[in-house]
């Protein structure tokens, strides 16, 4: 039972990581514009995140090095600090977007005023994280996030052409019209980026240490990383299928969270709509928690300060102050009137630019026999890791120009 519950770390990491506000809207848009043709980027992103999540877990357990300690040691203080600032800025923006998304979903469920809901939700999430042990946080968000399964059921009930779905996993360039080609590239890069958001690996590796994993638990590490990511990926595929079946034939470009949620309940009625809203709510709230905690983990790991969700706040005061501060500032950003989906578009592209500086040091340590001993990467692991790192770097280089050229994905 304990092992089974351990999987919730992978599920929460993946659901909060790549079934968050940005991915929900972005993937539905990709389906509405290109049908199944971008499924391959979900497949690619899934394999990449499994490979790197597993490496992060292994490094955390064997070398007792969470991600930002690795970043500091491998990149040096200066570049490491720049990466820390960029990553935490990204966490803050993403947390703000997710809190805004939570307020939208609760408004759609209850009709309550969004601003008041935002303040209330922020306080509730702070209280929840403050009072619950790490294991309970991951269980609550990991298991209740499974309500998102209603999106997958809707996608199946709408009878997609499975042959076309399978063909979507093979990359194909749509270069006939240059504008459409650029849009295609933008969405491919965006989906790949959203699946590899750094806070996922920060949270996962810190979670492995919070849960006190030992080297003998490493076989589970791969299972937890794969199963969680596979589930998140399945839901992402479902979102893309829904975009294809519900919105592509109607020439709708889904630009609102409510539009994406509507697709999740499209073949059904009120109960499914409520389930879709609740599933979305949990995933987005989980992402807000992940980003806020990651902010605290990153700073403390970088400066070798005491950290840990399971420690009393007075034993890890800076850690507690940072994650609570992240929540508070994020809520203020949304209250100031910034639209959550604008933030998300920016954070996905900005995240891509920062990504190589997180993933490169992890690969270096995982392949270092002095650190990892018998748990060092095999040659195949390293080759796959390098392959994905090259893709991450190429995507990072392309992200900003594509955002500008496509007006942030405007058809």
């Amino acid at each position, binding site marked *: 039972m304990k092992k089974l519950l351990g999987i919730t770390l992978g599920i929460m990491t993946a659901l909060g990581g790549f079934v968050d506000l940005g991915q929900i809207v972005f993937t539905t848009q990709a389906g509405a514009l290109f049908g199944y043709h971008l499924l391959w980027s979900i497949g690619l992103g899934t394999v990449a995140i499994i490979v790197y999540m597993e490496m992060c877990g292994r490094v955390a357990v064997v070398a007792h090095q969470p991600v930002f300690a690795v970043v500091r040691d491998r990149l040096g203080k200066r570049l490491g600090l720049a990466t820390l600032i960029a990553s935490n800025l990204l966490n803050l923006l993403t947390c703000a977007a997710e809190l805004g998304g939570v307020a*939208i979903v609760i*408004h*759609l*469920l*209850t*009709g309550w005023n969004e601003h008041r809901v935002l303040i209330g939700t922020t306080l509730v999430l702070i209280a929840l994280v403050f009072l619950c042990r790490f294991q309970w946080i991951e269980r609550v968000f990991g298991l209740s996030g499974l309500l998102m399964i209603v999106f997958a059921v809707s996608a199946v009930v709408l009878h997609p052409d499975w042959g076309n779905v399978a063909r979507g996993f093979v990359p194909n360039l749509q270069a006939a019209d240059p*504008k459409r080609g650029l849009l295609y590239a933008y969405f491919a890069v965006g989906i790949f980026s959203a699946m590899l958001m750094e806070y996922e690996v920060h949270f996962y590796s810190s979670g492995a240490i919070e849960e006190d994993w030992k080297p003998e638990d490493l076989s589970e590490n791969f299972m937890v990383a794969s199963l969680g990511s596979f589930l998140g990926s399945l839901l992402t595929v479902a979102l893309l299928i829904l975009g294809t079946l*519900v*919105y592509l034939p*109607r*020439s*709708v*470009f*889904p*630009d*609102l*969270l*409510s*539009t994406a949620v*509507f697709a999740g*309940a*499209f073949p*059904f*009625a*009120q109960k499914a*709509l*409520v389930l879709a*809203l609740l599933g979305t709510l949990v995933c987005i709230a989980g992402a807000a928690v992940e980003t806020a905690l990651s902010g605290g983990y990153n700073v403390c790991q970088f400066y070798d300060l005491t950290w840990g969700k399971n420690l009393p706040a007075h034993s890890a005061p800076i850690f507690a102050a940072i994650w609570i501060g992240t929540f508070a500032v994020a809520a203020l950003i949304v209250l100031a009137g910034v639209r959550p989906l604008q933030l998300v578009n920016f954070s996905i592209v900005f995240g891509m630019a920062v990504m190589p500086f997180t993933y490169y040091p992890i690969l270096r340590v995982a392949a270092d026999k002095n650190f990892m001993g018998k748990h060092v990467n095999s040659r195949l692991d390293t080759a796959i890791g390098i392959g994905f790192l090259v893709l991450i770097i190429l995507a990072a280089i392309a992200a900003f120009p594509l955002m500008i050229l496509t007006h942030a994905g*405007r*058809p």
Partner: protein
Amino acid sequence: MYLNLKMLLVMAPVTLLLACGKQQASRDDVHSDLIKSISLASESETFVRYLRQHRSTYYFASGYLNDLLNEVNRTAKELSNLNASPDLMDALNVDRVQLSLLAVQIDNVDRHLQQADVLAASEDQIRKIRMSLVQANSSL
């Protein structure tokens, strides 16, 4: 139909006035704006049909329609800041007028969520708005 004509008479001079001395739009911009407006009209039409089948909750319907209305108004505001060359002006004006009409219909649906006849009439009006926009887009 009566509502459409009335709104056209009111909105056309207003939008023409707003069009003076604004940012110049290219053919691509006008095309892109029309695609967005078609998307909003089609989305509204789809949701009103869903509503007519009693498949939405009250709060979701109200919140979603409010989101759609805000988006339509935001797009209309962006369009009001655009000017275009004479050959594009017709399409741009159709876009402006039809978006104004769409806003009226969405607001109407939001205020009569439980009234089947109003929903049916609005769905029909929104379909006509969408078709006008599609026609303007294909004339570009």
